[in-house]
């Protein structure tokens, strides 16, 4: 077999037996942690690697398992696990996933029978491996020109895992972890609508307080549900969820914080809250800095450039449309600037801004807009309550309210 150094038959035999022993010991002593270590086949841990070598040398592990009652009762788990390990080592990921899927099904079966939740740790590993292996298998499938479908299968398998946990009882505490794996799967697949049923199950269950879930899972959960709210442009909710995630996230996990901020910043911008430049720098979120600057300056051109520059990234992360809507705030800022300048010139007539001035300002910004278009934008600004006042068509003048003509958003989204 490829690359594996030949190990003596006896040694191989011993190693396989050792693994089997550890497995049955972990089950009998209800040691979830050690059990989970035995299942994490993508971890490339030393133990598992040598086990694979042993399996390659000693081909008849099957017999070893069947030999003893102790092992053979878990044969349905162990045999596919061995196969998954071997295939994984050979980078035969599709086969590895298939074998692991079999093992998982058998494990879930066993897990159902265990009353206490001691094996949750192992189940977490299992859920994680299902997803990761499926992703890898899909990459392999796609590179072979086949339809990647394993992740889809992983989705339904994880749903099965979820259903074993979602009920009452001590196992429920593990449900959120599986939910998060499901989120990851669905987001990757682009089938986020499937998240809804899981969310409902988590959020409507009165028997279990959300706060009782592990922090790690809560943060992940809030992150994903926050992202869903961004899609829906439900900014207050998104703000709440993502802020929760941010505040509970381990401060040392910078990558995670960055991921949260990636969504939180556009949300905050949409409700009129600008981040410190320092924050953007700290978490390497420079794609937002020009946007923030454009908002501050009322520079439409800068905003459009920034959007164009990072269009791909914003489209992929799904914040493009959110950022695009910031345009109105930029217009507002611009108008405010004009208003301030006019006030400096002639405070009495400052509340009347002639349309031609705005058109001129647009020209400066190299925005090709004619009077009609600008008029339309002014109309929209007033309609959306970003500007207080009215537009006089006959005289082509924006008449601003004398009191607070440019109301701040203050955490409220632009009214639609």
């Amino acid at each position, binding site marked *: 077999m490829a690359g594996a150094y030949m190990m003596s038959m006896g040694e191989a035999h011993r190693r396989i037996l050792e693994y089997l022993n550890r497995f049955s010991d972990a089950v009998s002593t209800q040691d979830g942690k050690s059990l989970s270590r035995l299942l994490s086949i993508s971890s490339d841990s030393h133990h598992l690697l040598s086990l694979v070598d042993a399996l390659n040398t000693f081909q008849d592990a099957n017999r070893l398992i069947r030999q003893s009652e102790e092992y053979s009762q878990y044969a349905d788990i162990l045999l596919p696990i061995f196969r998954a390990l071997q295939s994984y080592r050979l980078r035969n990921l599709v086969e590895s996933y298939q074998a692991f899927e079999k093992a998982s099904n058998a494990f879930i079966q066993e897990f159902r029978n265990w009353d206490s939740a001691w094996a949750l740790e192992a189940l977490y590993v299992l859920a994680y491996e299902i997803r990761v292996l499926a992703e890898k298998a899909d990459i392999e499938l796609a590179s072979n020109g086949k339809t990647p479908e394993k992740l889809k299968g992983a989705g339904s398998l994880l749903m099965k895992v979820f259903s074993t946990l979602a009920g009452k009882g001590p196992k429920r505490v593990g449900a959120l972890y599986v939910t998060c794996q499901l989120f990851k799967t669905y987001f990757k697949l682009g089938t986020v609508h499937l998240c809804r049923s899981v969310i409902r199950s988590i959020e409507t269950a009165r028997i279990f307080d959300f706060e009782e879930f592990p922090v790690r899972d809560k943060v992940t959960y809030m992150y994903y549900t926050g992202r869903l709210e961004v899609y829906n442009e439900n900014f207050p909710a998104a703000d709440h969820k993502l802020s929760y995630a941010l505040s509970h996230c381990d401060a040392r996990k910078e990558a995670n914080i960055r991921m949260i901020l990636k969504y939180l910043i556009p949300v905050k911008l949409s409700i009129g809250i600008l981040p410190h430049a320092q924050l953007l720098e700290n978490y390497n979120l420079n794609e937002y800095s020009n946007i923030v600057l454009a908002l501050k300056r009322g520079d439409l051109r800068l905003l459009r450039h920034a959007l164009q520059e990072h269009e791909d990234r914003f489209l992929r992360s799904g914040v493009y449309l959110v950022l695009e809507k910031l345009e109105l705030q930029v217009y507002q800022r611009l108008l405010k600037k004009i208003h301030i300048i006019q006030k400096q010139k002639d405070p009495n007539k400052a509340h009347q801004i002639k349309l031609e001035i705005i058109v001129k300002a647009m020209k400066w910004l190299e925005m090709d807009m004619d009077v009609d278009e600008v008029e339309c934008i002014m109309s*929209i600004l007033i309609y959306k309550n970003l500007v207080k006042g009215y537009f006089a*068509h006959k005289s082509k003048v924006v008449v601003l309210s004398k009191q607070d003509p440019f109301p701040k958003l203050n955490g409220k989204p632009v009214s639609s």
Partner: protein
Amino acid sequence: MNQGGTTDTLTTLGTNSVEKYPVIDPSQAHASSYYASTSSAPISWTTHGANNYPRENGTVSTSTYHHDQQAELTSRSVQDGLNGAPVVSTSTSGAVNVQHDYNSYSTYQNTDPYGYGNTGYASYYNNYQQQTSQPYQPPVGAYQNSGAPYQPLSSFQNTGSYAGSASYSSTYYNPADYQTAGGYQSGVYSNQTNYWQEGQYATYSSQYPNYTPDSTTLYSSTPSAASSQYAHHYKQWADYYNQTQTEVSCAPGTENVSVSGAPSLSSVPGGYPAANSQASAPYITSWRPESTSSELPAAQSGTVNGGVHDGHWKPAPAVFQNQNLNSVQHVQMPLETSSTYESFQNQQNHTHSQGHNLLYTATHQVPQSYQSSLQTVSQIAPQLDSRRASGKLQIPTNPRIASNLGLGFPKVEKDISASTAASKPAYISVSLTKPNEKVPSEDAADSILKPGMFPKSLCGYVERALARCKGDAQMVASQGVMKEIIMKATADGTLHTRDWDTEPLFPLPNADSANQEHILFSTPISSLPKSRSPSRRSKSRWEPISEEKVADKPPAAAAREPVKYGFWNKQHYTVGKTENKADNWSNTKFSLPEQKSSNKNSFRPAKKQRLVDGLSAADNGDESSESDKEQTLTAYYSAAVALADSPEERKRRESRSKRFEKGHGNRAEINHFRPKSAGAGAGNLYTRRASALVHSRNFEDSGTKAVEDIDWDALTVKGTSQEIEKRYLRLTSAPDPATVRPEEVLEKALLMVQNSEKNYLYKCDQLKSIRQDLTVQHICNELTVKVYETHARLAIEVGDLPEFNQCQSQLKTLYAEGIRGCHLEFAAYNLLCVILHSNNNRDLLSVMSRLSADARKNDAVKHALAVRSAVTSGNYVLFFRLYKTAPNLSTLLMDLYVEKMRYAAVKCMSRSYRPTIPVAYISQVLGFGNASPTTEASDEKERDGVEECAEWLKAHGACLSNDNAGEMLLDTKVSMSSLYMPEPEDAVSHGDANLAVDDFLARNPV
């Protein structure tokens, strides 16, 4: 006699065991070990190995091999139990008896034939014992205890004519078969489950390997006796055959055998094929009597079939005798030469496939039997060489038999493939058995005709060819033609290279040529007046009325050849399929009553279908030709029908069908199946789907083959219709190739629609039928894209969004496959559709992110993106500007959003403008007047626009007033609260105005 036989067998066994051992020792090198065995056919073994190998999944030892097999079957819990049981019971025999097949196999190697007889049988009986229900055990035990008990049995079995031949040691074995058959009768069936049948089947199959050595040796010592016996059998069989003519289980192949076998030089082989068809019969017989006596009568409920049934089953004792004969014959078969072996093999397959059909659970057994038969072949192979000389006499005849037997193959294959992967290899190995090829010294013609050399595609071809024959004359004639074809192919060496699956069938020879063939080949044909072609027989027996109908139009049917063979082939196909489905579903847990009914079902519906389909196909043909006589093409077609028998027409037709095949060259191998699936009834289609599903499940279970290996394309159809116009009808059954148009006709149809002056409703209907024809034929090319594009554009033109969405989603996948078309235009449409109508941010984002840089440069796409930004920002000015400059049909898509946009705009304006807005301005900004302001005579249009705008504003609750100068103004403050979205005038209760036909027609005048 027996002594001589023993030694002989011993020697052969010795060699065999050496050669064969690797097979049992399937480590990773399993496949190669197959190659190594010289006596057996490399090809066949290869396939076997290949198919078997993955199942083993890298296990090393024999035991694991067994185990794996078991594992494969674990889905069938029953079988699992069975497998487990034999292990225990046979452990005394000292062999690794995990499964029946292996059990017999291994014993074989380890012991001399007689020892084997004891041990093997012991084990075998043990198996049997375990499988059967309690009542059976005592007698079984009796048999098991000694070798002697078998003898009495043989006498039991050899009643009547057989006594004479009882000298055969083969009789010794027959009891086994017999015994089980008797068992069926004894009424235990009330608690019989499939276990039991399995037992039976196991018996049956494992028997073969056991017999062969013995009988072979016997043969060498007493050839004359054998032949005479055959004659004897044959007679008996003929009687029986007459009685059981209705047995459809005798696949056409076997029935052909009787015809063609008889013509051959001696009557000896005649008995042979008979036995083949018989082989299946015993099962039926053994079952039927019970069912008739207990519950079946009620179920049969006075149908014609029922009557036949009863009549058929009354002579039960006689039948049983025949069964004896048959079983004996089985045993004797190996006596004959290699070709005999093949036929024997074939027969086995046959039998099993049929048994399979009858009994639900035979699935596991099938592999077993195949495996054992495999052994037989290879073991006997060495002998064959030495026996050549003696076998020579029969060779000229046997090939014919065997080739006919080959007819059963495709079906068998289907059965197997649907049931278990394991059986497949066995089948292949059988059909390709090579011993013949190892004896090239034979004269050319003979060896050519040896069935073992025929590729299985050829067998399929032969089957197809024979299946469409009506009556013996045609059958014989066809056989003659086929022989010529095959000879020719062999002569120019294309026998194995040619793709028989796609080879067009030769035109049906007419009576004259048949007669010629007659002289050439078959003298005794007349001596067998009673054996008829399967079609005739089944019809006359089962559905006399329909036979009349069919008989009424023989010329038409013959002429409409494609139709004909379309449904004929399908029938073979389906018979197997139906049972498979049931088989797999039932999963071995059926109790007898159910079985009975399903047995019945497996026969009768299949047959009915055959007839009904045949009729309907014929009827359809008639109808179409009558109703469309105005159409020139049809006229031509019917003219062609009239000319069907002229040789030129035949040639033309041949070339036409060839052209078809070329058109789909890339799917060559599928074509073979197309005609089969064509015209199948709904049930059949579902059946096939179901079996395909089961198929896939099985594959997954065994973990060897991926789902994508299934030939889903086998479910496609190849059309033959030449009509350009066709109404769309949603398919409720499998498509009939006679009504499906091939690609070139569809092209014409598309052109016709594009140039048609008729209204959208008509065009939509036509396009849908074109789409349907494309779909059922799996045509995915630029024509497909064109059709969908045409339809999508038409749909946009009339605002038929649902239809447009359908086309659009199809186009998306078609473009994704790299088929060229107006990709960018439709990308723009897609974008517009998402923006304007679905209003789903996620969809929008994904569509946008999928746009390539190239696409973004396209004007249409750019426009669509601009529209998107105008919509998301609510910039109505921009929107209506884009509306006026929209390329292609984008305007029409935007049309659908205009109303919403205008309303939002007016709402926005009335909120932000004070005190008034001139309506003229609104009209201009919101694109009323339908014309761009730059055109001449704009004044007039503008005025029209203003009026239209005023109308619209009023309709939406706006408050208008006139100022001093007479200009119409919108009072914004008042309007702000009074604006509303009126109910659309063309609203219909079901929500989709497009569904209102009257309105639809009104909007789309011709």
